[in-house]
């Protein structure tokens, strides 16, 4: 029943720049079931966007999938040609990009940017596509939709553009929606409405969602699973409650301490994680978090910890959890 819509195995993505090879995604594996909502968290530069773009075959020069495979909805993404990818992009999988202000074409009206994706993937006439566009803008909570369709991106606020992007992504009822910080520019009320809308559509179409976010309240609200990324790796993965209340990796714990506690009434002091992110040009031999980890041991510097299963659907890569070490 719960079949996999997405199955990523041993994925490695590098950017070959003049300075050298940047290992943006380093050996990640990930499964996503039909209708499942996965959150991806991790600090800036940890590879969240790059990993998710690869699902659409959107890694551009100088980036390259160095290893691994991506199976999405019975397609093998990494070997698909341009033409085949065009058929699924925007239709079976769509994405809401991170920066709404630069992600829409400044010279085309909102309407034409919304209608073109509908025309491309359905048999609708221009008129029917326009009706659908009106409906979609209504869904994401926009007023005076007819007028809005004729307007240009510069006439919209960041939050409005983000909603337009969401409407575009939802236009052809995708099997998988990738939302890359798709609610950051929205105020709290609108954000709650949009999340509610996504959950409704997910239920109706059994759409899966990947939510990339820095916001643990979004995670707590709609995600079933969470992947924590650090230096291009998934260092911890689990059910939302496991990650939020029973984190096992030192980095996840640090990340949670650095965020306002959403459920407790106790106002804990926020503790930012000390140190700076890993240099992806020269990734360390051992645990990438070692230079910043308070519990760092000798072995952490020497070799990379393996994934350790803690319970069903919960695993992490940290030497502290290797029983062998203690016994």
């Amino acid at each position: 029943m719960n079949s996999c819509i997405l199955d990523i195995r041993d994925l490695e993505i590098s950017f070959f720049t003049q300075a050298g090879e940047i290992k943006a995604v380093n050996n990640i594996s990930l499964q996503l079931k039909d209708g499942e909502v996965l959150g991806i968290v991790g600090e800036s530069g940890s590879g969240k966007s790059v990993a998710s773009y690869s699902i659409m075959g959107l890694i551009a020069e100088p980036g390259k999938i160095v290893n691994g495979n991506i199976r999405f909805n019975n397609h093998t993404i990494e070997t698909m040609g341009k033409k085949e990818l065009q058929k699924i992009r925007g239709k079976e999988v769509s994405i809401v990009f991170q920066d709404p202000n630069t992600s829409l074409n400044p010279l085309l009206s909102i309407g034409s940017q919304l209608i073109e994706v509908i025309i491309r993937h359905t048999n609708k006439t221009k008129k029917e596509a326009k009706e659908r566009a009106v409906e979609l803008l209504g869904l994401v909570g926009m007023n005076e939709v007819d007028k809005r369709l004729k307007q240009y991106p510069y006439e919209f606020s960041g939050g409005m553009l983000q909603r337009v992007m969401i409407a575009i992504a939802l236009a052809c009822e995708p099997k998988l929606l990738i939302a890359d910080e798709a609610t950051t520019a929205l105020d709290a009320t609108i954000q709650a409405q949009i999340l509610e809308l996504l959950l409704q559509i997910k239920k109706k179409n059994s759409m899966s969602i990947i939510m990339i976010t820095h916001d643990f309240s979004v995670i707590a609200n709609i995600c079933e699973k969470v992947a924590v990324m650090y230096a291009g790796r998934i260092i911890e993965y689990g059910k939302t409650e496991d990650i939020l209340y029973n984190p096992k990796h030192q980095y996840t714990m640090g990340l949670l301490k650095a965020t306002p506690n959403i459920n407790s009434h106790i106002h804990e002091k926020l503790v930012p994680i000390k140190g700076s992110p890993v240099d992806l040009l020269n990734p360390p031999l051992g645990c990438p978090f070692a230079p910043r980890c308070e519990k760092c041991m000798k072995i952490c510097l020497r070799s990379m910890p393996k994934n350790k299963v803690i319970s069903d659907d919960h695993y992490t890569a940290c030497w502290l959890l290797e029983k062998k070490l203690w016994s």
Partner: protein
Amino acid sequence: MRSLIKHIVKRFAYSLFTIFLIATITFFLMNLVPGGPFLSEKNLSPQITEVMNDKYGLNEPVIIQYKNYMIKLAQGDLGVSIINKGRDINDIIYEKFLISAKVGFITIVLAITIGIAMGVVAAISKGKLVDRLLTIFSTLGMAVPNFVIATALLIIFGVKLRILPTYGLSSSAHFILPVLTLAFYPMAYIARLLRTTMLDVLDQDYIRTARSKGLSEFQVLVKHGLRNAITPIITYLGPMIAYILTGSFVVEKIFSIPGLGGEFIGSINGRDYPMIMGTTIFLATIMVSMNFIVDILYKVIDPRIELN
């Protein structure tokens, strides 16, 4: 929409004023230049010179001459040529401009279409062999003066291969060499500008968005890419089109085309004041009109441009 009309009216008035200024400046500059149509080489007797000067109003005070000229100009009358046996300057310019503009128009269409195609191809094959070849071509096209290109084409196709005519404009084949000569520079220029703007545009986030929607490569490159890449170069197209339409003296001389460019130089050599004035004002008007059109076009294409 209303602000656009207001803007058009404003720009139009501004354009008229520019032409007025140019006419005024040319008029007074002309009167500062020593010599006159009836002096120099022609060895006319002083009496005849006097009679002629009288006839063409050259003995009046400058300010009166200026007034008379401007009144006529306002009615669209550029006066009569002194050298061309009293022919109407309007007629001469009309006849010559038609010839230059015919060659110029074909040149512009060729330069814009091929220039754009070259720029796009270079941008999407950045760093590859095609791109390098196109870069070499456009560098040459911009660096080599057109009389060199004209001579080279003339020798190859006209003298050595003997497959193309080189003199006059009596058949459509006659247009090929002058058009090619004239097209080189603008074609290279457009290709180079467009390569730069296109590369910049292709790096933008909205291109990635277009791809993420599953649009065809053509839609991505033309609808989303080219449109944005062309806008910044429209500004350059105005003066370029005006320049080409009005004819190049050098090219007209080499291919014996009786166009406006040659006529202009002829009138300068002959000190034909009214003709020089008339041609200058005409050229200025073409230039100002092109800028006017480009300015409006720019506003229509790019909705972000503020109209105040």
